[in-house]
């Protein structure tokens, strides 16, 4: 199993947010996590990625059978966990090329591979930029600086392509995207799909799941996964909302 989350509890500023999450993600799978606002979706993504702001109080996470919680955030990243941020930050003055070169070579070093030469790196940038139709001019600009909302999200998928993760978690990558950008982002994700990697998509809207077809859909509510179904569940949720499932759970 690629990822096993067992009875995960987590607190933020002394307040419990996750209250016993169980989740298994296998190779080649696509999981969607849905749920009303404030249910803990982004927290789950952050905890798996290793954001030190979140305090795990109970439970464990295994990644390829290894204890993930003992690894710090950059080690998890180097081991192949990628988090597509909901709000990617701007880093003025740092060019995308420099940033990505440092990132890619840090991951390669972890994997025991030699750093890429300048020429190899540029070739990789061009190749992966095409996956999300990223304007090559953007890679000459500073990280996310002056990028539109859509460009920032495309840039997240571009970075995902560059780093070639084993487990990608996309935190509301679809929010703020128009339909064209949504299609490009989703197509990018699909192109990167392989039998030996996995994607967890966190979303509010069913529409993303028209393009990224999930194997499983989970409903997260008040820090717990209260329902799991197949891809058809997303359509049901789109029509009915979460009320029925929440009511069933409460009863």
């Amino acid at each position: 199993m690629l990822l096993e989350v067992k009875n995960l509890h987590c607190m933020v500023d002394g307040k419990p947010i996750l209250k016993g999450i169980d989740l298994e993600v296998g190779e080649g799978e696509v999981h969607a996590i849905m749920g009303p606002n404030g249910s803990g979706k982004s927290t789950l993504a952050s905890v798996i990625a290793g954001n030190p702001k979140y305090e795990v109080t109970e439970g464990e996470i295994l990644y390829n059978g290894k204890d993930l919680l003992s690894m710090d955030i950059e080690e998890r990243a180097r081991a192949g966990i990628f988090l597509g941020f909901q709000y990617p930050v701007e880093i003025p003055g740092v060019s995308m090329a420099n940033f990505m070169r440092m990132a890619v070579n840090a991951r390669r070093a972890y994997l025991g591979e030699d750093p890429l030469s300048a020429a190899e790196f540029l070739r990789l940038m061009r190749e992966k930029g095409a996956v999300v139709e990223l304007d090559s001019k953007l890679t000459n600009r500073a990280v996310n600086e002056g990028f539109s909302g859509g460009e920032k999200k495309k840039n997240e998928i571009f970075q995902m392509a560059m780093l070639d993760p084993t487990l990608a978690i996309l935190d509301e990558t679809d929010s703020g995207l128009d339909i064209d950008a949504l299609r490009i982002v989703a197509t990018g994700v699909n192109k990167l799909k392989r039998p030996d990697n996995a994607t967890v998509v966190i979303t509010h809207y069913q529409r993303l799941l028209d393009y990224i077809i999930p194997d499983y859909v989970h409903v997260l509510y008040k820090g717990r996964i209260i329902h799991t179904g197949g891809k058809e569940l997303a359509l049901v949720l789109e029509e009915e909302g979460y009320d029925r499932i929440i009511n069933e759970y409460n009863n």
Partner: protein
Amino acid sequence: MSDADKILDEVTGQDYKYGFVTDIDTDTIPKGLNEDIIRLISAKKNEPGWMTELRLKAYHHWLTMEMPKWAHLDIPEINYQDIIYYAAPRSKPKYQSMDEVDPELVATFDKLGIPLEEQMTLAGVAVDAVMDSVSVKTTYKDTLAELGIIFCSMSEAIAEHPELVQKYLGSVVPYSDNFFSALNMAVFSDGSFCYIPKGVRSPMELSTYFRINAAGTGQFERTLIVAEEGSYVSYLEGCTAPQRDENQLHAAVVEIVVLKDAEVKYSTVQNWYPGDKDGQGGVYNFVTKRGLCRGENSRLSWTQVETGSAITWKYPSTILAGDNSVGEFYSVALTNNCQQADTGTKMIHLGKNTRSRIVSKGISAGRSQNSYRGLVKVGRKASGARNYSQCDSLLIGDQCGAHTFPYIESDNPSAIIEHEATTSKISEDQLLYCNQRCISTEDAVGLIVNGYAKEVLNKLPMEFAIEAQKLLSISLEGSVG
């Protein structure tokens, strides 16, 4: 401990990497300062009478002055009688090849990662290595001599080119200018002299490495650069110093004269011992640097990367006297731990249509205090003068300070003066983002700081830019959160 605290803690926990003492015999004189000491220094250097007299005049003037107190600096009392004012490597060497150079000295440069051999082979770089106070080595001199360029130690210049030295020494920074310039004229031990004749473009970057090396010895460098009509030179100065427990006083003076249609680029990377993380030790760096754009269409560009010293008091300035002359100042000043820096520039517009540009990037970490102080002055006759100033501050952690003191004085209504300022912080979110992209916090801080300072670093000659980039990262190293 929050992430920010951890980063702060580790940033401030970083020790100076270049702390070591080179074991070379030095020829020193007794502590203290009086007429006899000055005569002794002058005698040791076999100086002509006029130089001795100039030193004594400066000394007597210095006695009437007080140390300036206006800077945003907390300077401990300095006992000027407790300082050794002269130290020279024991045997004054005049080497023809590297083999003759004291192996200890070579090892010192090796530790710094700037071996002389490499410097010598680096295309286009002539090195005049100053170890303590006497010039130890000058290279590429022959090549330069063919073009009529004089590049030598100040002592040599006084002996061999007295007419040039007498004409220009003190012409831009007279000894009476300030407390430290008076002290410097009285006791300066050596420095560099550079003369570019009319119409000559120096084919290589001229560079000097200064180091402070004898325990308890103040270093008083004197540099004089004269660029004759239509000439061009790029001059580099870089420094690091060995670790010391007691404070070391450094009061250098740099004077630059730029004549009609000439251009001088002066670049500095300064990395003297900043003291330990509790503020013990470290170099006191009180420097007067000033250039005079005397002729029409002359240009002077200062670029500095300041990462060292416990206290920095330094304002490389330009007097734009010639019509259409241009002055530039590009600065990165990084302070960490308990360092204090009060640095900036003065642009004095006297000629018509003179232009100046100031780009200052301050970086404060630890418990340091970092101030930009700048004056833009436009004289009555300087019609059409133009200035653009940009002062940015970057804060790392929440215990440091960044301050900006811009002064603008304009006596001409046609002047256009612009001032922009920003203050920013390296945010936890930025570091987190980098971490999630496999980049360690330490590397992320280096990346962000270098990105922030890029505009200034780009102004440095290539080989210096790379060294400066490393220096910025090293100075903030240990910041893994």
